[in-house]
């Protein structure tokens, strides 16, 4: 029997107090995610239960019980507090998927500071804009990533501490760097937990928009109420499950469902800190007897590319429940997973801003391959007419996916960007920026983005950010960035560039530009295709018309070109 039971029954009389009761939380009391994910589980008598089964590159294994993560997060929290870090200070986690990342997040939250996880593959410029915007005081990182921090240190006067978790003494530490070893520190058994309340800030996740710099999405401790219940009802985690969320905590899935969801539910979870390979993933599932697997369409399509023969080499019979997030899951992938794993991947839909799953397919509900499913109980969703911002009354109309604010994990602000935050609302609806339609049975069907943001492999990339970085390359005069279709990542970044006098198009220059962006921003933002053009389509006022380039890439109608400069 699944945790949700009947979806239809759950819709009746739904109230978030269901989650509050399960978590023994009463409105007005203290609520601290770090405490809920470790101390509370120990108090329930499950301290000896495995919380984390971790495997790194080369097969190195580590195991942590709930007692271990409680003490280890206390130790990190105490270390930070001794450095003078106070509640609401921003502490960035800039690491690969090492245990210190997962446990460190709890430690930061326990002292009331705000955790700012960032993807460790970010280049120095991507890192800089996010640390600068948040006025981050401390960064916890590994020695391999420290050089990127050193490059931007002079421009970050607020950044007081750079904590290196794996310092080996080989090279001298640089300015503001401090070593910290979880293994060698004296464990702190008791830590005074900062008395955070429901609206106390907890996390700052950065997301990309069409224009401007990335925005810091502020979440609060009360988000736990949504994250816990969606973990129970959608991901269906149960007492004996071995859970694997493949997302990196540098992105919101990796924290909401790679740390907070499973640990607040007292589940054993696995982490594989190694690059993707079909064999490595199947071997990992077999070795740890994983039962619940939460992954992404890009990974699923990569597994499909690996073929079915390889699946038969492994015993994957432990798998009980599969779910997917990041971008729409194509029907072929669902049909394939049913054939090879005996179970479909259930698609889930949500965003950095929503903090938890909003629209989903549920255990026991009829699955329509390719559909996003239905809104989570307690979530009022609609498809709006893009002109009036009123919900369509008829089914089948394509419009804007919108959500009525009020669920616990809704973002509370964009960090220092009130205007951008206000722009996300119309007529009392939160606008997701995605388009969809609803069928007669109430299932949502994803259509695409309503803006120019590129969703590559489930990660949002701002064309503006890539265009700006391209202009810093000495050969580039002008740039325009759009998405182009990709069989694995759904879409990837494509750049159109004009060159400055004295530079000639060549394949070597193309590679140089690709690597320039990869190092500066991130591998995700690197154009996977680059086209040299003599000029870019512009409006008469000089604005680059990305939609014309986008339409050509996707084989769509170009539409109105009356404002085109050379028309």
């Amino acid at each position, binding site marked *: 029997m699944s945790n949700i039971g009947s979806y239809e029954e759950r819709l009746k009389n739904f109230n978030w107090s269901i989650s509050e009761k399960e978590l023994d939380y009463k409105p007005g009391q203290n609520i601290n995610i770090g405490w809920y994910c470790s101390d509370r589980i120990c108090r329930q008598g499950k301290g000896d239960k495995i919380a984390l089964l971790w495997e790194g590159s080369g097969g190195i294994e580590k195991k942590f019980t709930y007692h271990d993560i409680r003490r280890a997060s206390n130790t990190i929290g105490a270390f930070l507090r001794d450095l003078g870090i106070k509640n609401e200070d921003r502490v960035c986690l800039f690491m690969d998927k090492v245990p210190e990342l997962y446990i460190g997040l709890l430690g930061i939250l326990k002292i009331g500071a705000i955790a700012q996880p960032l993807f460790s593959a970010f280049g120095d410029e991507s890192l800089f804009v996010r640390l600068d915007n948040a006025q981050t005081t401390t960064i916890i990182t590994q020695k*391999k990533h420290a050089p990127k921090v050193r490059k931007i240190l002079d421009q970050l006067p607020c950044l007081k501490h750079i904590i290196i978790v794996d310092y080996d003494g080989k090279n001298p530490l640089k300015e503001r760097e401090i070593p910290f070893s979880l293994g060698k520190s004296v464990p702190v058994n008791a830590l005074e937990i900062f008395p955070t309340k429901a609206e106390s800030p907890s996390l700052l996740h950065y997301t990309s928009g069409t224009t401007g710099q990335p925005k810091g999405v502020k979440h609060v401790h009360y988000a736990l109420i949504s994250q816990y219940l969606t973990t129970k009802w959608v991901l269906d985690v149960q007492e004996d499950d071995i859970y694997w969320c493949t997302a990196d905590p540098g992105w919101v899935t990796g924290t909401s469902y790679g740390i907070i969801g499973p640990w607040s539910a007292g589940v054993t979870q696995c982490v594989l800190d190694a690059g993707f390979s079909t064999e490595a993933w199947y071997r990992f599932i077999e070795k740890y007897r994983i039962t619940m697997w939460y992954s992404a369409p890009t990974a699923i399509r990569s597994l499909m590319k690996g073929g079915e023969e390889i699946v038969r080499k492994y015993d994957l019979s432990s798998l009980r429940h599969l779910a997917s997030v990041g971008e729409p899951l194509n029907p072929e992938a669902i049909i394939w997973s049913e054939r090879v794993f005996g179970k479909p991947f259930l698609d889930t839909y949500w965003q950095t801003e929503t903090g938890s799953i909003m629209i989903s397919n549920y255990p026991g509900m009829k699955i329509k391959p390719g559909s996003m499913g239905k809104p989570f109980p307690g979530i009022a969703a609609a498809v709006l007419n893009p002109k009036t911002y009123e919900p369509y009354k008829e089914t089948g109309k394509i419009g804007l996916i919108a959500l009525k604010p009020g669920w616990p994990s809704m973002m509370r602000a964009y960090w220092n960007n009130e205007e951008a935050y206000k722009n996300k609302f119309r007529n009392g609806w939160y606008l997701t920026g995605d388009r969809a339609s609803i069928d007669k049975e109430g299932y949502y069907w994803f259509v695409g983005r309503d803006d120019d943001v590129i969703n590559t492999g489930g990660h949002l990339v701002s064309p503006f950010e890539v265009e700006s970085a391209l202009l810093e390359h000495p050969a580039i005069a002008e740039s325009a960035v759009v998405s182009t279709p990709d069989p694995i990542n759904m879409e990837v970044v494509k750049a159109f560039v004009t060159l400055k006098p004295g530079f000639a198009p060549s394949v070597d220059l193309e590679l140089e530009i690709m690597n320039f962006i990869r190092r500066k921003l991130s591998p995700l933002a690197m154009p996977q295709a680059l086209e040299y053009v003599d000029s870019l389509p512009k409006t008469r006022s000089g604005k680059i018309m990305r939609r014309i380039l986008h339409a050509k890439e996707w084989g769509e109608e170009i539409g109105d070109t009356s404002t085109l400069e050379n028309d």
Partner: protein
Amino acid sequence: MDDVKDVILNYISGEYLEEGSDPITYDTPLISGGIVDSFSMVSLKRFLENRYKISIPDDEATPEAFDTVTKIVELVKKFVK
């Protein structure tokens, strides 16, 4: 192909390793070891194609085939005429 091996090893060391990282060998796991991710594999493939004037089909450019310098050399050899 020893020269090819060193060219590729030096390219990967220069492009994908952070300053101060442990040096890689011909058999260091690149993809499974997290040194080169699936997005960065595209630029590595482009480098090989430019340098050796070859075209590597997408279905041959798998994480497994790119996992070590030794394996990459084997892949390049298949396409160099």
